[in-house]
């Protein structure tokens, strides 16, 4: 059996089943949907055991050279605490694990996040005005005006009237332009996925039909 062709056919049939939803909900779509969800769940369980639990925990507790590192029992116990959520009486234990995850994550990323997404962005907005060619300066001014007027729009402690209101209007206009750009990019992404599927169906799957039927070599 040619496994490659079998794989291509399975991929094509499941793709067509999923696209059939565009006409209306139907059993083929339901089958493909359930297949996808079930296979994803199964795949992730095995992948996590093989690639996360065994190398990062089990092999460290029981190293290849022998022995037993009892310290690694601690993360194991915390992992079991996470599963306590499914037993209502001891569900509170999971908070210990979640607390540790959130605490470590926040501690490690708080300063970095502020530096990367606040300080550097503010600096980039302020200092961009003074450098570059005339076009760069113009672009930078648009950026600064956009940022300030956008912030003004979200300032609700003062009525949006007079100069303040006009600035807020500039802000909402710039926000709409930004949303439009995001919408355009989103369409590009979705169409790209459709193109990928169509290229697969037309260039990989369709040529296998004559081969299977013994037409055209």
């Amino acid at each position, binding site marked *: 059996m040619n496994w490659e062709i079998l794989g291509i056919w399975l991929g094509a049939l499941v793709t067509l089943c999923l696209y059939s939803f*565009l*006409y209306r909900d139907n059993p083929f779509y339901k089958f493909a949907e359930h297949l996808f969800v079930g296979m994803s769940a199964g795949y992730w369980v095995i*992948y996590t055991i093989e*690639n*996360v639990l065994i190398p*990062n925990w089990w092999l460290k507790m029981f190293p290849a050279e022998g022995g037993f590192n009892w310290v690694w029992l601690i993360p194991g116990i915390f992992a079991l605490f996470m599963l306590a959520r499914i037993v209502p009486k001891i569900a509170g234990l999971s908070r210990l694990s979640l607390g540790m995850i959130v605490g*470590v*994550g926040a501690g*490690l*990323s708080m300063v*970095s*996040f502020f*530096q*990367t*997404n606040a300080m*550097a*962005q503010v*600096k*980039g907005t302020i200092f*961009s005005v003074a450098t570059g060619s005339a076009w760069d300066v113009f672009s930078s001014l648009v*950026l600064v005006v956009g940022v300030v007027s956008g912030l003004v729009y979200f300032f609700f402690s003062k009525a949006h009237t007079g100069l303040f209101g006009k600035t807020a209007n500039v802000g909402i206009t710039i926000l709409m332009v*930004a949303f439009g*750009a*995001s919408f355009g*990019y*989103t*369409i*590009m*992404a979705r*169409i*790209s*996925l*459709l*193109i*990928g*599927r*169509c*290229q697969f169906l*037309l*260039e990989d799957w369709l040529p296998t039909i004559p081969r299977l039927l013994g037409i055209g070599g």
Partner: protein
Amino acid sequence: MADFYEKLGNIDRRIIFVLIALAVIIPIIFGMVFPNPVGAEPSRDLFNYVDSLPEGSNVLISFDYDPSTMPELQPMAEAIVLHLFQKNINIVGMALWPQGASLGQDAMSSMADSLGKVQFEDWCNLGYKTGGGVMIVRLGSSMSAVFPTDRDDVLWSEIPMLRGITSLESFSLIISLSAGDPGIIAWVMMAGDRFGVPIGGGCTAVSAPTLYTYLQTGQMVGMLGGLKGAADYETLVGITGGQAVRGMAPQSIAHIVIMLFIIIGNVAYLSQRKKGGAK
């Protein structure tokens, strides 16, 4: 005339689906390829940065995506890998997404085979490691502690090209091909801003507007956004008939169809509002 506009406004969505499908399928069947001029864009910035790296430099590519975003990111991966190999730059691959390691392996091994590059001397794949940003911070102090072996369990010490590499600072550039989180933002935050390593990247079109802000501040040296970014890099590297370049014809025609429907929808809406039917 008013009825006509009303009918337009209530057009069956399945007709739109068919037209979009035709707009994509017909250009693919007829092999249509549109010119893809590349201006002074973030794609060119990334290309120029890679082009300016000296031979023998080490570049880390993190394949942070999975098959669901392959149409956009795999052509980027192949074009970037080809460019790096052409420049005789060593590539160390890794992934923050589990399936990214396999997709990266496909991109690197296929390009390496065509250019005669040798695994473990010119390129290697360290594989997937969980942890996202926290793991990147650890890479900043010791790479071999995080990746004692590569994807195929070959020991770090047995891979010749890794002998001079100790931490993230051993790399001239880090490129993240990212479909979401963890991805480019984690690399900018934990590697770029923390350890001062230049960061470049490629991303899906959905996340491109969010990431453009890192270009203006200089936190990224260049970026490929969506299929257009992939087509740009293919053009700059000189790949003829690449997957992304071929995808730009159906992409453009589908966009025209969508824009036509946006215009039709607005005309129908305004007409109905004039009549007093829509609010």
